[in-house]
């Protein structure tokens, strides 16, 4: 074998390693819909609270959204013949969101049943927690769009500490719209494009 042919063979091996590592990390999972679902759930809970101040409102809405979310994920996983292997990055991101969900549920429970619900504090804490989850996820995957979403939540955290109750609610509604609905749809469009490319690649 000539030196040039040997080099080509070795380069081919190097390319194979890079392609296979990328293939292992490639994900066809879609998560944009969860942002939209939770955004709609927040709007639903806010709307319901306008008619009913019961401490159960947020808890019932969040638990229902969780059940919907898990049911869909479970159904989707069952329908896939080949289970996608987990990655360390995937587990880290899942852990962040799961822990944030538990923290938020405890916050809703505590504030609701203690009767010490304060709209400003509630919005500030929820926005801060969503900022943490989005910021950490965005930094792990080095995704500027999600870090920008975290910045919007952090801005909402600060804004919620000032102004009237109505202004605080407007801040929350705008943050939900931008970081859940708009970001979720943007993510879904990106995922659809990636799936299309993946299908043609396969």
């Amino acid at each position, binding site marked *: 074998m000539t030196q040039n042919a040997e080099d080509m063979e*070795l380069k081919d091996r*190097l390319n194979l390693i890079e392609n*296979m590592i990328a293939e292992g990390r490639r994900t066809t999972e879609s998560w944009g819909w969860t942002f939209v679902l939770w955004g709609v759930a927040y709007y639903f809970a806010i709307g319901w609270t306008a008619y009913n101040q019961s401490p159960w409102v947020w808890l019932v809405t969040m638990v229902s959204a969780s059940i919907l979310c898990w049911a869909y994920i479970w159904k989707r996983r069952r329908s896939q013949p*080949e289970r996608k292997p987990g990655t360390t990055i995937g587990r880290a991101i899942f852990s962040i969101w799961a822990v944030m969900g538990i923290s938020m549920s405890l916050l809703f429970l505590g504030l609701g049943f203690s009767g010490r619900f304060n709209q400003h504090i509630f919005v500030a804490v929820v926005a801060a927690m969503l900022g943490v989850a989005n910021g950490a996820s965005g930094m792990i995957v080095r995704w500027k769009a999600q870090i920008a979403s975290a910045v919007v939540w952090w801005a909402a955290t600060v804004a919620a500490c000032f102004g009237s109750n109505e202004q605080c609610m407007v801040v929350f509604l705008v943050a939900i719209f931008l970081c859940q609905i708009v970001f979720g749809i943007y993510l879904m469009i990106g995922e659809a494009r990636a799936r299309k490319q993946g299908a043609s690649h396969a």
Partner: protein
Amino acid sequence: MLELPELNPVIHGKLRLALLSLLSGVEEAEFTWLRLKTGSTDGNLGAQLLKLEEAGYVSVEKKFVQRKPQTLYRMTEAGRTALTEYVQALKALLGGAIG
């Protein structure tokens, strides 16, 4: 004269190299997923995975999930070290040929 490194023959096989590279990016993988990604036949894939297992580069776990058999493969520390050394050796051999 500078001595060139030798390439690990266990990893050098194309399918075995592909398998180790795939496993390096995930925590564990099912046999069926590895087959899908490599496009290999069951027999060849099983034989190459056995060679990697014998070399201590992958570990295997067999279990039943919802009454269906499932074979899971994981890269071991020895496998990770071997792949890293292989890549370093490749780069050393290629020298200035890689940009």
